[in-house]
């Protein structure tokens, strides 16, 4: 049985230890191509590494997670964005969708949910446009 292809994932959060925790959790199912603590660094790495999926925190000190979503679409439309946030409301989910995120995961959710969101995003065709309203 052929080994299933693993998504190449770039992790972005301003808290370095969370990046390390995500790496530990996701490594069995994903290839972690990098972890950075700033939105600007993330954008330059998207150009360079062209990851399949980028996991971005909404609240970043330099560039907002929403801006990263929008810029990634310009830089490399093939990269899917999974937005992660400590807050959760309809307005945020709506904004995430409008800015181009394919999934919205709250930080309070189990890490499994993040893994599932990455796998779904990876398998999603570019033309698929999921709704992020209330689907976790």
């Amino acid at each position, binding site marked *: 049985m052929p080994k299933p292809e693993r998504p190449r994932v770039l992790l972005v959060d301003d*808290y370095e230890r969370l990046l390390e925790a995500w790496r530990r959790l996701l490594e069995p199912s994903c290839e972690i191509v990098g972890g950075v603590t700033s939105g600007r660094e993330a954008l330059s790495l998207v150009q360079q590494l062209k990851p399949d999926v980028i996991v971005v925190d909404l609240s970043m*000190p330099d560039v907002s997670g929403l801006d990263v979503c929008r810029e990634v679409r310009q830089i490399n439309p093939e990269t899917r964005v999974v937005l992660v946030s400590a807050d959760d409301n309809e307005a945020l989910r709506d904004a995430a969708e409008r800015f181009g995120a394919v999934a919205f995961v709250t930080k309070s959710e189990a890490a499994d949910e993040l893994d599932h969101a990455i796998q779904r995003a990876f398998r999603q065709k570019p033309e698929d446009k999921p709704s992020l309203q209330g689907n976790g």
Partner: protein
Amino acid sequence: MAEGLPDVSTDRPDLKFTADRISAFIDTLERLAGGDIDSTLPISPLHDELDAIAHGINVVAGELRWAHERMMASERVNAEIQAATLRDELAHLSRIATLDALAGSLAHEINQPLTAVSANAEAALRLVASHHPSQRELRTTLSDILSDNKRAVAVLQRVRTLVKKNALEYEPVDVNGTVGEVATLVRMNADSREIALDVDLATSIEPIRGDRIQIQQVALNLLMNAFDAVQGCETTDRRVQLRTSQREPWAVVDVVDQGDGVSDDAFRTIFQPFFTTKPNGTGLGLSICKGIVTAHGGVLEASRNPSRGMTFSARFPLWRSD
């Protein structure tokens, strides 16, 4: 001569002398009764019975003066105690207001390690469930959980300390550690506002004697003011510096901003209560800070930087146990 006394014939000088002395007694007693407690009677060289009465009146007047001075001192002390209590109440309310403004960034700062704790706990569970769990990886993961837990607790403790309404405790205070904690507390707020906060603490600084929480409040208010001052600037100019130094006989805390500064009129009244340049400011922050620094025997000053912005310097007298 006191009213109502009969005229004494000038051919009896002894009687006239006595009558004049009694008139002086009556005048003096009337002045004392009218509140002129500094009045005293002269003592004649005769040292007779009238002098004994004069001495008695002078003693009573002296008692009155002493009682009056005590009363005045007591009133002053009461007024000072009331003013200090009011200042502490205001300081406490102001701390809560400042923390309220910081609530968003504090929530983020607490949420970060908690999210990492949760993710690492899941990672640890998966490791344990795997066929050949790496002991080293497991140990590192658990150690990260502990570190993040400590970090979240530390943030909460810093907040709790500032919210608590404690009686003042004057003790030796390490200025660097005290204001350094405040810098940590507001760092997230500065980051989210794209403000570069440079913290330049003196390598060695002797302790001051004071209330740690109130000194933290001064640093907190000055830093939050400085953030507001640079908020409207271009991102590259949004710089605030917190520095400490020892300039005998003072320990000095400077907060330097690169903002637009204030007008001449505003500069003159900057420490007055209810003065504010902010749309939603109470105008009490700097006034409270000045009150706190003054109560510590220190000085809070504002100056304009040669290039741009302002520097607020809080000087506290160094504490010497000898």
